[in-house]
């Protein structure tokens, strides 16, 4: 029996066979071209963004990222308020969604009766298919008045000594954006974590129960085993929160002022692009917005890469767990 029968055929064997069957070679090349196409598109996006942003890069250099002055009239452009807004809204979303998402996932995977688990999972996955404009409308017309009249005044009067909860309750603002984002990224966290927990070997759970753990201790062992994958799920969710545009634009209040308060309006990188690109009439304004797009693209790329590396490092390359992320 030939050695290649068990593994992928060696390059020489593939070539030899390809030359015998010309259609096969053409087929392989075609699929290869498809795969290459993805890289070409990604590279073109970076190239076009960099080209479009070059006037702003030349004009401001690194100051673009640390200046908080965004004045289209005077043509001073600094992206700091938007970097800050993106970090704050996404951070808040993770803070709210991670505990909720992990708890839900553990319940669904380990504790819920089968029927309940299926129904709840279905509903949570349905959340992922709701268009972001619908979340925006909900955040604007339902959540914002509720925050303004009930939640924010309460937070202000009880926790008002913390800068996070100071200021006038507008309803719309960072808190609204963070909550809407948290709901939007919840399905990613829940469904991935649930899959990961279900994929962990049952023997782990059974072994720790056999050693005398309580049920919650045994679940902790399972969650611990799935930890790197869960981290991956959280990072994918972060990726969605960073780039979310429409819903955030509708509820964040859109001002370029940096404020520590969750009640204050702000803006994110994607929201300022959505707001200003169509009417950006000067070359520098347009270039600055494109530079923000470039930075956002690179940040999400870095976040994803960092996530993958973390997972790889945490698992020591164990593909069975890491692969699911």
């Amino acid at each position, binding site marked *: 029996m030939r050695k290649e029968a068990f593994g992928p055929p060696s390059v020489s064997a593939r070539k030899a066979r390809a030359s015998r069957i010309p259609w096969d070679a053409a087929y392989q090349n075609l699929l290869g071209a498809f795969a290459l196409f993805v890289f070409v598109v990604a590279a073109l996006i970076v190239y076009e963004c960099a080209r479009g942003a070059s006037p702003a890069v030349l004009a401001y250099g690194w100051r673009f990222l640390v200046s908080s*002055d*965004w*004045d*289209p*009239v*005077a043509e001073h452009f600094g992206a700091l308020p938007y970097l800050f807004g993106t970090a704050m809204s996404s951070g808040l979303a993770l803070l709210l969604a991670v505990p909720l998402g992990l708890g839900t996932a553990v319940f669904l995977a380990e504790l819920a009766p089968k029927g309940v688990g299926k129904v709840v999972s279905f509903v949570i996955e349905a959340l992922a298919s709701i268009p972001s404009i619908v979340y925006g409308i909900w955040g*604007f*017309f339902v959540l*914002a*008045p509720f925050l*303004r009249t009930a939640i924010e005044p309460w937070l202000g009067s009880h926790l008002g000594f913390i800068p996070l909860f100071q200021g*006038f309750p*507008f*309803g*719309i*603002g960072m808190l609204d954006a963070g909550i809407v984002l948290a709901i939007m990224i919840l399905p990613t966290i829940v469904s991935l974590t649930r899959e990961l927990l279900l994929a962990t070997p049952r023997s782990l759970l059974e072994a720790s129960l056999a050693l005398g753990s309580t049920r919650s201790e045994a679940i902790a062992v399972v969650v611990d085993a799935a930890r790197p994958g869960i981290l991956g799920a959280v990072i994918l969710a972060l990726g969605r929160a960073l780039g979310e545009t429409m819903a955030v*634009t*509708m509820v964040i*209040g*859109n*001002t*370029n002022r940096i404020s520590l308060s969750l009640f204050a*309006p702000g*803006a994110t990188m994607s*929201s300022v692009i*959505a*707001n*200003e*690109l*169509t*009417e*950006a*009439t000067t070359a520098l*304004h*347009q270039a600055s917005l494109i530079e923000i797009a470039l930075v956002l693209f690179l940040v999400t790329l870095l976040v994803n890469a960092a996530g993958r590396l973390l997972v790889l490092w945490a698992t020591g390359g164990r593909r069975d767990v890491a692969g699911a992320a």
Partner: protein
Amino acid sequence: MIRVSRRATEWMAGLVAISTLAAMAPGCRAQSLTGAGATFPYPIYSKWFDVYHQKTGVTINYQSIGSGAGIQQVKAGTVDFGASDAALSDDKLRDMPRPVIHFPTVGGAVVLAYNLPDLKGRLQLTPDVVTGIFMGKIPTWNDKRIASINPGVELPGSPILPVHRSDGSGTTNIFTMYLSSVSSEWKNTIGYNTAVSWPAGVGGKGNEGVAGLVRQQPGSVGYVELAYAKQNKLPYALLKNKAGNFVDPTLASVTEAIEGASDRLAKDVRTPIVNSAKGGAYPICGLTYLLVYRDSKDTAKAKALAEFIQWAIHDGQDMAESLDYAKLPAAVVKVDDANLMKLTSNGKPLLASR
């Protein structure tokens, strides 16, 4: 064989005859024009394009992608005309590959919509108060600067929340141009543009975003287009004009404002019309423009476009008011007419004088 070929010949002859007829009859050869730009005049433009198509067969495709993008498209030469709520500055005109002519088509006003649920009657505002509110310098509604111009009206002690547009917009351009013309402080620290660095308040996306915020938040005041406020039944303020009268923004008071600026418009059609000196003029208003290259290569297209503009500024004006746009006063129509005569194709005038 012979029969078949004879039949084929007949067919061919028929086809040739039909196509010749089609080419000869000018009415049958429908022109198709493309334009892009401002979103504000889109309702009236699409109405005009529709009516004009039924009348003449000329098809006009218009993409309302925003004034900024429209200007870019004109510059790139990808459209036959552009549309913008803000006139091009001298710098931007120089940037264009060839001379561009502005044609004002209709006027619009920007009103201050407010949410004061317990207020009886209409709120009255002055230029100083509007500037103060949007600079964040007037903290509450019962501030004496507001109370003194609203005698006999009980104003609440609640904080004022100014609401502005978050997206770049011709509406913002008109509003900030007005603030710049009434306040040197605003002019020097903020200025005017389709997007500015707002010193206070929150931003909503689009007219509907601003209106939504105003409707939700008691104590808020925001600027929206007159048409939008009317159609959505938002209360909006009377504003003191240059002549010292408190004026209700109506289509008539906008047309009067445009009329007041017609002498200056005759010299340069791009002149801002905010803060008109006429007695009954509402001060925050602007014109929306079509941008057309003065000379173009394609004579048939250029002629069709010139004829359309001529129709729009005369017959088309009657449709404006039903869609809440202010008509051009006769003096400005005259300016447009004179500019139409300047349009040429390969150096030859397109229209015979009317």
